[in-house]
């Protein structure tokens, strides 16, 4: 009874240990410990048969030198243990040293024991190993002891067998994994299929069934699907078509409960069995689990013995199949992990490829600072097959002044045929991205497409309610529009024009500011725009945004630089002009003296010649032409001097009278009547009297020219106290100026006269301007012209300097101030704008 109880306890514990998840070595250790404890002996050991069945190896021991584990190798038939392995019968030895079969293993720790029991571990008639127990004191073991140890040996036999199979399978698995590693380049899915096939084949062969099928649980729809069949199935198509829910059929129940199922009396009436399975007489189904998660099932049908007769499945079969299933599950898991790893690798490779393309694009973008060319490159990159691969693309930029989105460029075929042609062309050329960018830069703009034309016409206010493009700017994010026609956010006008069906937008961002938007679609090949596409597009857009901003800054800089250059040119020009003016003045002076002689003597000649003398005509011509030359000289000198006014306190009326005096004779000759309207109390003004006189002379000269057949010249002067201005009016009755002429009257060298330089009114304008005054023309066609000149009564600058009587210093200083101020304003405008 006592022994029975111990036996029961030990067997129960050993069964527990055997079914645990521990590896074989640990399991055997625990078993040995259990035996030594429960049977009250001093030592215990388990030897396992090596492959080939020719030797035993110490695998677990209590009370022996632990270093001997895996170190002692016994030939079958050698020593007491070897004898037991050969005879397959348990043996109790009272005094080891007296036993002729005894063989010493120095250092094993065995030598101190005197009595022992050695029991073979048998499985299906084969010796898998030997269990020994020892006592130090001499002991007569009972048959009960022998029986107990034999029972234990029987009990762990299956477990050891499973474990060995497991070990074998592990070895094979490792082999497979290395095979798998080698062949992973070829096809991982094929490999996985082969693995599964191997599991079903091995299972069938090991247990001797008619067939085996492997279901895997599909994580997406939670259905069990047949992944592999081995053996003779009459209806493989039907089987593979039948997907099982959890709980449905044997496989479904096994998977749901994660517990094996064995039916040895299948009939047509069996419950919970699929009809197609009822043709078999027996089945064994076990779950395939990885880390307690069911991934599928393994089912064997119709076990047959060596002679082909149907035999029932038993517990050993179940254990074996479970071992195979768990093994298979591990292999599958591994394969899946590998597949996942490979998928990750591929995704990473895709990312790496994305980055490579982006890098190339950004390189390409950095090759140009020309905004137009840059936009071309950007959109080509978006539509290039090796790039982002969209069919069509539009780039819009934000116009901050008008707060609108403005279409800049559209790239894409106009029609399906066009698309096909372009793609075949590109395909046949097999250009790399770099070559292709080079060709973009070389060819400049494409021929203008209708699409580009339409794209350039887009103007969208950046406000809510103005469509998805405005939203892209306002919300700083992209949109993926699957059905443009039904999406209320879409601006219908654009939709119609550009035939968008589904498209995506992405903002171009630079320094946290949306500077534009890219729209893409796949109108021609209808490829769906995926999240991955968008992600790549966004990545690209951030690059493009920066590049555009750079190009803009560059073009602004270039413009500023150009402005500075222009300004510099103008300064140089004005210096040149000043130098030219000086030269003109000195030449004019040199010319003046000979002109006086020529003209003077011509006049003398003329006065001495009688009117009837034909030479009189010649002398008149000389006198007239010299007069003309002298007038030209006067104007040129006035023009060259006008840059530097010399100010003094003057009375305007005096200047007016002086100017009128010049024309006194000629006015009366031409029959021009002069009327004066000079108000009282007109203050002196601070002007260059010579220049102002020149102004009046020019105006009178024009009036005289306009009234060559007589008329009235009205000259007025008044003081406008509020404005602090002295006003001078000069009116003629010469019939006015024609409209096409009046716009040009202040242009230098424009003249309607047959004589004169045309500089007159230009000088007038310049002088009045330099005095801070204003000149207005009132033209009454058919009547006459009135010029109104306003001059400030007080010059606004230089009051203190004025007292120092350094008129030249002052004027040149003032001139410089004007230049400087002008320069700053100009730069400011350019840089800001």
């Amino acid at each position: 009874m006592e022994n029975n109880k111990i036996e029961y306890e030990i067997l129960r514990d050993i069964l527990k240990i055997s079914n645990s998840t521990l590896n074989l070595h640990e399991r055997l250790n625990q078993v040995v410990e259990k035996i030594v404890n429960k049977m009250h002996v001093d030592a215990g050991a388990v030897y396992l048969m090596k492959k080939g069945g020719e030797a035993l190896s110490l695998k677990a021991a209590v009370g022996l030198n632990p270093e001997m584990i895996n170190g002692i190798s016994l030939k079958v038939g050698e020593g007491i243990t070897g004898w037991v392995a050969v005879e397959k019968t348990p043996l109790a030895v009272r005094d080891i040293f007296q036993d002729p079969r005894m063989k010493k293993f120095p250092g094993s720790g065995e030598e101190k024991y005197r009595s022992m029991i050695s029991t073979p571990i048998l499985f299906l008639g084969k010796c898998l190993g030997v269990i020994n127990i020892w006592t130090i004191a001499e002991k007569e073991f009972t048959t009960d002891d022998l029986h107990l140890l034999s029972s234990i040996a029987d009990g762990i036999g299956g477990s050891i067998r499973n474990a060995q199979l497991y070990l074998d399978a592990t070895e094979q698995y490792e082999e497979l994994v290395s095979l798998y590693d080698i062949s992973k380049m070829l096809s991982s899915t094929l490999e996985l299929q082969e693995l599964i096939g191997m599991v079903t084949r091995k299972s069938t062969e090991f247990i001797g069934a008619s067939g085996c099928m492997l279901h895997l649980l599909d994580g997406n729809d939670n259905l069990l699907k047949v992944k592999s069949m081995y053996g003779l199935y009459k209806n493989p198509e039907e089987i593979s078509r039948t997907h099982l829910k959890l709980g449905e059929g044997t496989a479904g129940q096994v998977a749901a409960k994660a517990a094996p199922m064995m039916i040895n009396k299948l009939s047509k009436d069996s419950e919970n069995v699929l009809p197609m399975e009822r043709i078999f007489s027996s089945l064994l189904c076990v779950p395939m689990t990885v880390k307690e998660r069911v991934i599928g099932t393994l089912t064997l049908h119709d076990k047959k013995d060596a002679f082909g007769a149907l035999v029932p499945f038993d517990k050993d079969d179940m254990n074996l199949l479970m071992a195979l299933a768990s093994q298979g599950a591990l292999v599958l898991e591994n394969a899946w992990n590998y597949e996942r790893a490979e998928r990750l690798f591929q995704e990473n490779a895709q990312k790496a490829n994305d980055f490579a393309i982006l890098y190339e694009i950004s390189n390409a973008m950095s090759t140009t600072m020309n905004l137009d060319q840059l936009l071309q490159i950007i959109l080509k990159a978006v539509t290039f097959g090796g790039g982002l691969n969209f069919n069509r693309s539009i780039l819009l930029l934000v116009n901050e002044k008008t707060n609108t989105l403005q279409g800049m460029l559209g790239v894409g075929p106009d029609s399906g045929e066009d698309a096909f042609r372009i793609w075949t062309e590109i395909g046949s050329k097999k250009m790399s991205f770099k070559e292709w960018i080079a060709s973009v830069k070389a060819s400049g703009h494409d021929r203008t497409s209708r699409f580009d034309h339409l794209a350039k016409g887009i103007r969208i206010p950046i406000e809510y309610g103005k469509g998805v493009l405005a939203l892209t700017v306002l919300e700083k994010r992209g949109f993926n529009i699957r059905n443009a026609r039904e999406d209320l956010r879409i601006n219908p006008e654009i939709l119609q024009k550009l035939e968008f069906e589904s498209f995506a937008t992405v903002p171009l961002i630079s320094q946290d500011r949306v500077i534009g938007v890219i729209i893409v679609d796949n109108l021609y090949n209808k490829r769906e725009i995926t999240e991955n596409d968008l992600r790549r597009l966004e990545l690209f857009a951030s690059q493009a945004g920066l590049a555009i901003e750079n190009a803009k800054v560059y073009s602004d800089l270039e413009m500023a630089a150009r402005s500075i250059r222009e300004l510099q040119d103008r300064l140089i020009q004005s210096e040149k002009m000043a130098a030219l003016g000086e030269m003109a003045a000195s030449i004019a002076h040199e010319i003046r003296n000979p002109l006086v002689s020529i003209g003077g003597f011509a006049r003398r000649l003329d006065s001495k010649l009688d009117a009837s003398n034909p030479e009189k005509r010649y002398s008149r011509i000389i006198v007239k032409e010299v007069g003309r030359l002298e007038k030209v000289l006067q104007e040129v000198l006035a023009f060259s001097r006008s840059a530097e006014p010399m100010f003094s306190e003057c009375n305007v009326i005096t200047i007016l009278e002086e100017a009128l005096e010049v024309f006194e004779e000629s006015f009366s000759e031409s029959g021009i009547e002069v009327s004066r309207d000079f108000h009282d109390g007109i203050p002196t003004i601070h002007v260059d009297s010579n220049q102002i006189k020149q102004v009046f002379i020019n105006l009178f000269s024009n009036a005289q020219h306009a009234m060559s057949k007589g008329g009235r010249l009205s000259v007025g002067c008044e003081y406008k106290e509020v404005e602090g201005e002295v006003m001078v009016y000069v009116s003629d009755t010469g019939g006015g100026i024609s409209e096409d002429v009046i716009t040009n009257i202040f242009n230098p060298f424009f003249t309607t006269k047959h004589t004169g330089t045309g500089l007159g009114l230009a000088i007038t304008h310049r002088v009045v301007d330099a005095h801070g005054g204003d000149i207005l023309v009132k033209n009454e066609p058919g009547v006459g012209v009135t010029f109104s000149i306003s001059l400030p009564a007080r010059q606004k600058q230089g009051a203190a300097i004025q007292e120092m009587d350094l008129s030249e210093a002052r004027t040149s200083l003032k001139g410089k101030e004007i230049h400087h101020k002008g320069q700053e304003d100009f730069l400011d405008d350019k840089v800001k704008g």
Partner: protein
Amino acid sequence: MKTVLIVDDEENIRTLYKEELTDEGYHVILASNGYEALEVLSVQKPDAIILDIKMPGMDGVNLLKLIKERKEDDIPVIICSAYEEYKQDFSLWASEEYIVKSSDLTKMKSALKRILK
């Protein structure tokens, strides 16, 4: 008969002035620069002087200064120059008139007439 001293470095101009003013009934003396003019002035006193400004040797400006310093000789001076721009300055210099040279001598003649009334 009134005597007029003409000071100008241009011979043709001197000739022109002389012939014109002689025709007008003046007695004309010529000098081609300031020094010559001073020599003339040391021996006789003309009724008026017609003076050019830009001349080699002593120019019109210096001559005018010397003439005005000699208070006993209150001879009126008419400046007749190719330069317009000194006109303002010379009005301060107590010259009677500043005339910009021209082939038309009407202005000079009328100025002389006015001064020597």
